[in-house]
C-alpha cells in the first residue's frame, strides 16, 4: 500500500483511506507493507526510513517537475525504490497517489516486477487538471472539461501544447496501471470522459472505522450546525458564513455554528482576513473550535442537528459526508459532484445551489423553521461502507484473473 503521506503527519482523506485499508489487510493476516512519502529530513541522503514494525516505511523523495508530477532526476524512483521492490517483491501494489512520489512510479514497478498487479485509487482530478486537481478554474468558476486551450487561459505560463504533453505523458504512465479505483461515481465519470476505459475504473467507497464512543445529547433550544474539515477557499466556509449573515435575526438567534476546522493559520492572509470579517457581525452564533482527532467525531457529531458541506469545487468523496452518515447526522451540501451522489435532497439531507449564500440561507431558514426535518431525513441515512466491506470489494481487483 503506497500513499503520498503518512496519516501520522498528513491527515488528508487519501492518506487516511490508504492507511485504514493497509491496517485492515494486516488485521486479516495479509503480508502487507505501507510506504508513505514524507517531507521529513532523511538520515544522510537516505531515501527511506523506518516508521513502525518493519512494515511501515517512509519514502523521502519529491517531484522534480510539479506540472507532470515527474521524478526522474534523482535516483529515488529508478534506483532506491526499485531496490526496495526487489527486496519486498510485492504481488500487488495498491497506490493511493503518485503526487509527490513521481508519476513514473508505475513504470518503475513494471520494470522491476513485470507481473506485479498495480492498482491506483484516484482521489481527485489531478491528472486532468493543473489547478490542484480541482477542476475549478483560476477565476473560481467550475470547470466541466479540460481542454488544452482553456487550460492555457487558466495558466498563461503554459502553452496549450504543454497541456497536451502533460495529458499524453500522464496517460502513458497510467498505461501501467491494471485497475483504477474511484471512491465516487462522479469522479469515475470525469476520468472516463478524459480517456480511461470504463471497465478499468471501479467505484469503491472509502471504508469507515466502527464507531467507538458513546454519543451525547443534542441541545433543545437551538439548531446546531457543524462544519468539519480543512478551512481553505474551495471548501466554501465563506458561503456558509455569508448565508448566516443573510438570515433574519429572529431566525439566526435559533442557530449556532461550530467550526471544526484545521489549517486556518496556513491559509493566505487575504483569506484569513476575509473569513474573520465575515464572522465578526455574527460572532455570537459561531464558535471556532479548531482541529479534532478522528476518534472524537462521534461525540462531537452527536451534539449536532446538521453538518454543512458548502464546498465550491466538485469534491470526490469527502470524508466528512461519510463520517456524518456513519454517525446518522443529516447533511446540507452543495448540489454538485461527489456531494450530491451521497446526499439526496429532502431524502437523507438537503442540497443547495453551489456557491450561493442566498440558497444556503433558505435551506438554513427551513431547518430552523422545521426542526422535525432533521429527524425525518435522519431515518433515511444509510450507513456508509465499513472498512471491512471496502476491503472485500477490493479483493477481486487484487486477485481476479
Amino acid at each position: 500500500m503506497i500513499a503520498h503521506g503518512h496519516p501520522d503527519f498528513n491527515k488528508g482523506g487519501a492518506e487516511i483511506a490508504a492507511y485504514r485499508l493497509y491496517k485492515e489487510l494486516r488485521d486479516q493476516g495479509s503480508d502487507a507493507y505501507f510506504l508513505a512519502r514524507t517531507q521529513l529530513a532523511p538520515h544522510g541522503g537516505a531515501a527511506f526510513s523506518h516508521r513502525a514494525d518493519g512494515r511501515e516505511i517512509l519514502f523521502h523523495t519529491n517531484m522534480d517537475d510539479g506540472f507532470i508530477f515527474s521524478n526522474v532526476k534523482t535516483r529515488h524512483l529508478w534506483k532506491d525504490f526499485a531496490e526496495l521492490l526487489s527486496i519486498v517483491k510485492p504481488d500487488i501494489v495498491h497506490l493511493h497517489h503518485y503526487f509527490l512520489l513521481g508519476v513514473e512510479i508505475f513504470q518503475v514497478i513494471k520494470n522491476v516486477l513485470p507481473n506485479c498487479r498495480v492498482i491506483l485509487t484516484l482521489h481527485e482530478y489531478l491528472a486532468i487538471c493543473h489547478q490542484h486537481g480541482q477542476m475549478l478554474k483560476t477565476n473560481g468558476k467550475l470547470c466541466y472539461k479540460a481542454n488544452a486551450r482553456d487550460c492555457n487561459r487558466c495558466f498563461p505560463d503554459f502553452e496549450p501544447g504543454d497541456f497536451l504533453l502533460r495529458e499524453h505523458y500522464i496517460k502513458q504512465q497510467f498505461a501501467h496501471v491494471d485497475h483504477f479505483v474511484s471512491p465516487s461515481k462522479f469522479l469515475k465519470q470525469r476520468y472516463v470522459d478524459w480517456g480511461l476505459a470504463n471497465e478499468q475504473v471501479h467505484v469503491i467507497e472509502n471504508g469507515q472505522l466502527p464507531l467507538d464512543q458513546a454519543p451525547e445529547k443534542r441541545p433543545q433550544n437551538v439548531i446546531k450546525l457543524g462544519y468539519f474539515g480543512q478551512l481553505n477557499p474551495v471548501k466554501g466556509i465563506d458561503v456558509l458564513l455569508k448565508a448566516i449573515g443573510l438570515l433574519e435575526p429572529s431566525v439566526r438567534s435559533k442557530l449556532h455554528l461550530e467550526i471544526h476546522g484545521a489549517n486556518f493559520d496556513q491559509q493566505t492572509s487575504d483569506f484569513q482576513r476575509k473569513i474573520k470579517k465575515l464572522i465578526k457581525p455574527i460572532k455570537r452564533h459561531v464558535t471556532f473550535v479548531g482541529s479534532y482527532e478522528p476518534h472524537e467525531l462521534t461525540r462531537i457529531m452527536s451534539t449536532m442537528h446538521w453538518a454543512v458541506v458548502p464546498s465550491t469545487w466538485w469534491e470526490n468523496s469527502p470524508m466528512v459526508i461519510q463520517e456524518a452518515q456513519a454517525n446518522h447526522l443529516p447533511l446540507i451540501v452543495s448540489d454538485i459532484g461527489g456531494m450530491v451522489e451521497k446526499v439526496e435532497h429532502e431524502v437523507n439531507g438537503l442540497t443547495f445551489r453551489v456557491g450561493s449564500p442566498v440558497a444556503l440561507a433558505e435551506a438554513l431558514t427551513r431547518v430552523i423553521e422545521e426542526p422535525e426535518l432533521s429527524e425525518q431525513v435522519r431515518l433515511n441515512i444509510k450507513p456508509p461502507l465499513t472498512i471491512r466491506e471496502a476491503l472485500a470489494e477490493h479483493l477481486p481487483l487484487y486477485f481476479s484473473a
Partner: protein
Amino acid sequence: MPKSLIRKVLRKIRGEKSHQAKDAFINIDFATSASGELILLGWMKKSQLSSTDLQAFDGSIACNAKVFTYSRDDVAAHFDVASTSDVQGFLAIINAKQSSMDKLRLVLGDRTVELSKHRFQVSRTVDQLLNHIGAERSSAVAFLKKHHVELDTAANEHIELKSARPLEPDVEKIKNYVSRINLSKSSWVDDCQREVLPAIQKIWKSRQSSVHAECLTYGRMPENPRCSVVVPLYGRYDFMQFQLSAFSADEAMKDIELIYVLDDPMLDHEVRVTAHGLSQTFSMPFKVVYLDINLGFAGANNQGAAFASSELLLMLNSDILPTRSGWLTDLCKQFDSLNSPGILGATLIYEDESVQHCGMQFTTEPNVPGIYLNHHPYKGVPVALLDLPNARPVLLTTGACMLMRTDLYRELGGFDDRFVIGDFEDSDLCMKFAAKGYQNYVSGTVKLFHLERLSQGLVSGDNWKQKLTFANAAYQHQKWNDSIDTLIDKYDSGWQA
C-alpha cells in the same frame, strides 16, 4: 550548478583578474516568484562573506532583500579558497515589482549584477526551485515560511520573469550586420547579398568548424536500426522526456536509432542528469550528442546525422509528439513504396488538431519584394476538413519532420550551414533533392503533433531576427535564382485539385 559551468564562470573571472581584479562574484542559477516576491537561488563569492553582504536595488533604491545562505562546497572546491566562508549558496527573497524588473540589481562588495542581463533558469514553483538546494532544503523551507512565502504559488500574485540570454559575440556581430538591411530600398536584396551575407556567413561558417561534439549512449542501441532519428534540443530539453515516454510505449520504435543533439551548451549539466534518469526509467535507448557551442538548426542536425548508422534518416523537431503508435514504421513503409522519393514529410497538427503543416509552398510578400518566403497552406484549418492525399507530391516540406535516405543526405551535403542560425535550410535541402531528380512528398496518413508556441503578436519590422530571416531568404534566392521557378513547375504538382 554544473561543474562545466563553474569552470566556465571561473575562466571568466580569471580572465578578468588580469586587468580589473574584482573580489566578489554573484551567480544566479534559478529564479521564480511567489507571494508577490521574487525568489532567487544562486551562489556568491567574496572574501569575509556574510549573508547580509548581498543587497538588492531597484534602480538606486534599496529593496528589502532577505537572504538565506547554505554551503556550496562544490563551488568552493573550484576556487582556490581554503575556507568555505568565502563562498556560499544563497536563497534570496526580494520585494520587487513587475515594473522594476528591468532595473533590478544585485550588489555584493565590488560586484553588481543586473538581473535583466543575467542568464538564469526560471523555475515554475518555489518547490521546484528548492529541489536544487539539496541537504539544507528543510532549513530553506523554514526560512521561506518565516517570511510568509507560499510554497504553492498557483493562485498567487505573479511576477513575469524573463531570463536574459545574452547574445554571444558572434551573434552580436551578426545582429549588427543584419540591422543594416533597409527593406524600403528597392535594391535591398542586391545590397544584402553584396554587403551583409558574405560577412555573416563567414562568422557562422568558422563557428561550425570549431565545434566539439561528444556522443554518449544511454541504454542498448538496436544492432541494425531500421531508421535513425535526429532530434536537436535547444532551450526546452524537457521535450526529450515526453518523446522518450511516447516512444517507449510504441513497440514499433524498438529498432530505431534515436539521436538527440544538445545545441545549447548552457544546458549541458541539466541534460546529462535528465538523460541518465530517463534512460533508467524508460526502455527506449538513445544517444545524446553534446555540442560545446550553439550551431543552429542546420549545424546541429548535420552533427547528429554524422552519428546515424541506418539507411533511412529522419530529421525530427523536439516539439513533435506522435498521435499514435506505429507512425514511424508506417512512414518508412510509405517511403519504400514511393516512386524515386527524395524527402517524405508528415502532416503536422497543433494540439487542437488543426493543421500546422501539410506541405510548404513558396510565396511572395509585397512588403519584402524580391524574395521567396515559405508558406504553410491550410494552416489552422481543422485537419478533419481536409481530404489529404496519401502522399502529396510537393517541392517543399518542413524541416520539422523529414524522412530521407542517409546516403543521399550525405551526398548532397546535408543542410547548408550558410543559412545563419536557422531558416530556409529545409526548403534549400528539398530543392537539392529535386534538382537531382527526386520527388519530395508529404504523407497524409502519418499525422504528428507539432507543438509550436503561440505567436507573440506581430514582430516589428526592425526586429533583427526577422531581418536575419530575410537575409537567409536573400541567400536562398542568390543560390537558386531562376531555377526555383523551374523546380516549382516540375515538382510541385501536389496542390492541383
